[in-house]
């Protein structure tokens, strides 16, 4: 089960992440070149980069970072705690993380439903860019993060200090 979750999150994050990264790189560059050379711009670049690529790219990789143990923490004191205290500290991380991420899922789901109902959009010049769909990235990404937290919990993390290169 753990391996399936790992593979699913890895492939999903890599597939969508690579697509968003390449699209963002190309659109930003083409827009900059068009502006510098022809004084023209691709329509709605700022709105699309901000709401589509950046929102996707910001939240989607969080579950992968959880699986790979890459969320930033400070292990200086933790590594020096006795076994019992260290376990208690790991459980504190786990409970708080599940609680906070659960709250974000709840709130972002409510927001996504609200934005979908009103058909939220961003205005670019005279055109309207629908962005309600982008609000769904949050509950989906944070649910993936919650799944990653449950299957790859802080209670099983490595106690070593160090850096992954």
């Amino acid at each position, binding site marked *: 089960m753990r391996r399936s979750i790992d593979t699913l999150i890895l492939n999903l*994050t*890599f597939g969508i*992440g*690579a697509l968003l*990264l390449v699209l*963002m*790189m*190309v*659109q*930003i*560059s083409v*827009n*900059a*070149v068009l*502006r*510098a050379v022809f004084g023209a711009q691709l329509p709605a670049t*700022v709105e699309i*980069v*901000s*709401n589509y*690529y*950046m*929102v996707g*790219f*910001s*939240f*989607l*990789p*969080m*579950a*992968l*970072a959880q699986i790979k143990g*890459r*969320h*930033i*923490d*400070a*292990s*200086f*004191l*933790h590594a020096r705690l006795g076994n019992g205290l260290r376990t208690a*500290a790991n459980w*504190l*991380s786990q409970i*708080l*993380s599940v*609680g*906070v991420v659960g*709250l974000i899922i709840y*709130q*972002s789901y*409510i*927001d996504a439903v609200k934005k979908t109902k009103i058909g939220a959009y961003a205005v670019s010049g005279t055109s309207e860019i629908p962005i309600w769909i*982008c*609000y769904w990235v949050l509950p989906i990404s944070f649910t993936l993060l919650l799944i990653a937290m449950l299957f790859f919990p*802080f209670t099983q993390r490595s106690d070593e*200090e*160090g*850096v992954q*290169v």
Partner: protein
Amino acid sequence: MSANVIGFSGLIFLFFLIAMRVPIAISLLSVSFAGITLAFNMNVALGVLSTVPYTFAASWTLSSVPMFLFMGFLAFHTGLTQGLFRAARAWVGALPGGVAIASVLGAGGFSAVTGSSIACAAAMGRIAIPEMRKSGYDDGIATGTLAAAGTIGALIPPSIVLILFGIQAQVSILKLFLYGFYIGVATLVIYSTVIIGLALLRPHLLPRGPVVPLSERFRALVDVWPLLLLVVGIFGGLLTGVFTATEAGGVGALLTALIGFARRTLSYEAFRSSVMDTLLGAGSLFFVAIGANAFTRFVALTGLTNAMNDWIIALAPSAFVLLLLIIVFYLIIGMFLEPVGAMLLTLPLLLPIVHSAGIDTIFFGILVAKLLEMGMITPPVGLNVFVIQSVSDNVPLEKIFRGVTWFLCADLVLVIVMVFLRNFGT
């Protein structure tokens, strides 16, 4: 309970959670949510959770972070940075401590395509440490040099720390890049001076290399011309106003990919590794940044900023004393936390104080980046030292920390000079 008491209690609880190794993002979000709920009610706290993540992420300026990360990883995985050390060694290898100076210069070159000091230390360490050992260098000096040289990665643009500072403090990223470049080059110069001094005092620890013929020196440059082209392309475009600091990341990543494609080094494996490294980097950075934004709201809503302002003004009557306190504070916090986490954690508290003391924000940003990078090589948690240990066949940590001491002293001198030359951003 008054809002101020909640603010201070939240701050203490935040440091407790971080010390207990609760992820920094979760610590910031938990304290902010609980604090705002206590000070107001749960609806206000849920409102913060509702607005902060999306508003933070849906940002045009922030797009430069994944783009510059991608550019750096692409440059590394397509081998664009491989010839840097060899070229630098061909030119300066014959100087006293020449191989060590070459690794510092190599790190300086690598810094121009990466915004991370860990990546810089790891990449240059893998190449330069074995070469320094072959040349008879002392292990402590070789590893210490590379650990310190890595810190230049977060000063010379593009710098992820400086971009995030610019977004958080709402100041020009181009200006931060410009002054980051000056301090990065100054660091490079003082590190090279330290090496020459050490080599003159203790030549047996840093033996001089052979003089390389001029033809071979130019041949070594052939390997690095694509990197030079990339750096000139990006910074030329930036400084001439062809594109903005935000766009420079996208253009730089595309240029790197095109150069890799032209040199036939952009394999699927290189692309996959670059995307994965970028995803992991962004995934961890943005989570902390979202937590820091929520914490900013908590600090403002509980009035903690004003209370701390009064307290700090009473403690530090002048901007100079305040700066000294800030330096000591960041040197201490840098000993325990990694730079982005430490910066995002502390800016909500310190930025308003720095503003009201009339300290130039650009200067403050560069100072914070420099101090936190010094924290990357100070015990007990010196991430660059850990990285260098892992790429150097496990040279004892104590030995690396000892090797770093000279560079830390030089850094302190530079920080003092910076304080006397402050106001350079205005």
